[in-house]
């Protein structure tokens, strides 16, 4: 038998020699975009039988932003542009674009390619993923994996949603919940000897509850079994999120911020109570932005960073959950 031999040198897509496996990745910068139009609870009370107090008591939402002409790709590109501007990198440095979305109307091209075109990124790998509201943590994990595998070096990870296109504006149980937005992170390989800034992902799903949150069929509306989702979210997720903390090597007391999917203020408070992270700021962007699905975590984290509420380098627990039912979370170092 002849010796098959080993390749003398691995190179990445730009021809640079890949000499070793990369130890991990970290978030360099964040950015977000929300449409200008604010929809208040009083506005909704003109459209369906509801009122401000009822909405605040049940879901804790005061306002949400609704896109007019902007598409998912427009919002995704606007958020990505801000994240890129804060990263110190150029468009040409980006070799992968990953977009988490479940509300892009077009089947092709995907949102990632549209974002790359708008930002003038030369020839990146570009794909969308759909795990509904948990999408950002899934997308961040795939970016981290691609970097660790040597398939990418600098990645833009985006969560972008325009759920207003899929909202039944005559259904008072759902139309009060959702908003449109995008959030983005620039993720890069860590330098040699540097600690990874994105911890191992804890991810999974509950396939037997695939009907609990739905955007089904042709020209669909979003529907959900509210009580079932609330029960799952407030009981099953905290132990999984603690697992994500454990996998990262941190203790609950080390975590400085909790950014979970902004579904409903009572769910966020329920998860925070069960998690019991003594030193963590809890993101509650739901109050001003509503539920923006896969955009909600990068949007909330970007705002925490912008307001200086979490120190750079501090461990932040991200935990997404939603339709599928799917969930994913990881500890990241704050950019």
């Amino acid at each position, binding site marked *: 038998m002849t010796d098959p031999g080993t390749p003398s040198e691995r190179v990445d897509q730009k021809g640079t020699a890949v000499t070793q496996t990369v130890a991990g990745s970290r978030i360099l910068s964040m950015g977000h975009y929300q449409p200008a139009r604010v929809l208040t609870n009083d506005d909704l009370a003109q459209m369906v039988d509801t009122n401000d107090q009822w909405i605040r008591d*049940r879901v804790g939402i005061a306002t949400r932003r609704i896109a007019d002409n902007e598409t998912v790709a427009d919002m995704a590109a606007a958020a990505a542009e801000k994240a890129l501007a804060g990263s110190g990198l150029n468009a040409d440095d980006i070799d992968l674009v990953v977009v988490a979305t479940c509300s892009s109307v077009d089947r092709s091209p995907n949102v990632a390619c549209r974002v790359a075109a708008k930002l003038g990124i030369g020839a990146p790998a570009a794909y969308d993923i759909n795990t509904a509201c948990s999408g950002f943590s899934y997308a961040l994990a795939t970016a981290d994996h691609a970097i660790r595998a040597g398939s990418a070096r600098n990645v833009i990870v985006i969560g972008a949603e325009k759920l207003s296109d899929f909202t039944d504006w005559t259904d008072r149980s759902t139309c009060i919940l959702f908003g449109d937005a995008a959030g983005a992170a620039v993720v890069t390989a860590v330098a040699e000897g540097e600690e990874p800034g994105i911890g191992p992902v804890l991810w999974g799903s509950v396939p037997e509850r695939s009907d609990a949150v739905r955007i089904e069929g042709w020209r669909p509306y979003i529907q959900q*079994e*509210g*009580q079932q989702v609330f*029960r799952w979210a*407030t009981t099953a997720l905290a132990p999984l999120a603690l697992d994500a903390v454990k996998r990262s090597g941190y203790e609950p007391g080390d975590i400085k911020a909790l950014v979970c999917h902004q579904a*409903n203020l*009572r769910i966020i408070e329920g998860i925070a109570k069960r998690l019991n992270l003594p030193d963590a700021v809890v993101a509650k962007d739901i109050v001003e932005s509503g539920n923006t699905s896969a955009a909600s975590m990068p949007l909330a984290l970007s705002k925490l960073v912008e307001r200086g509420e979490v120190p750079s380098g501090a461990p932040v627990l991200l935990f997404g959950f939603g339709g599928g039912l799917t969930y994913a979370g990881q500890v990241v170092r704050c950019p």
Partner: protein
Amino acid sequence: MTRDEIVAGLAEILEEVAGVNPDDVTEEKSFTEDLDVDSLSMVEVVVAAEEKFGVKIPDDEVQNLKTVGDAVSYISKAQA
């Protein structure tokens, strides 16, 4: 556990979860109409009741528990 003991246990849960006055909790009361417990608080009551009484109350069953008495009957049967 007697029915009265279960009512007393539910009253404690309702006070903690939804701020209901324990004196108002009697078997004929409807959770939503008389005690003003909304659909999400009802889920919290059910989850707390599972822990307190050591029973399972599946999602599908929650909608059948209209009154405190319905819940007492379900819990006492499940405990048996």
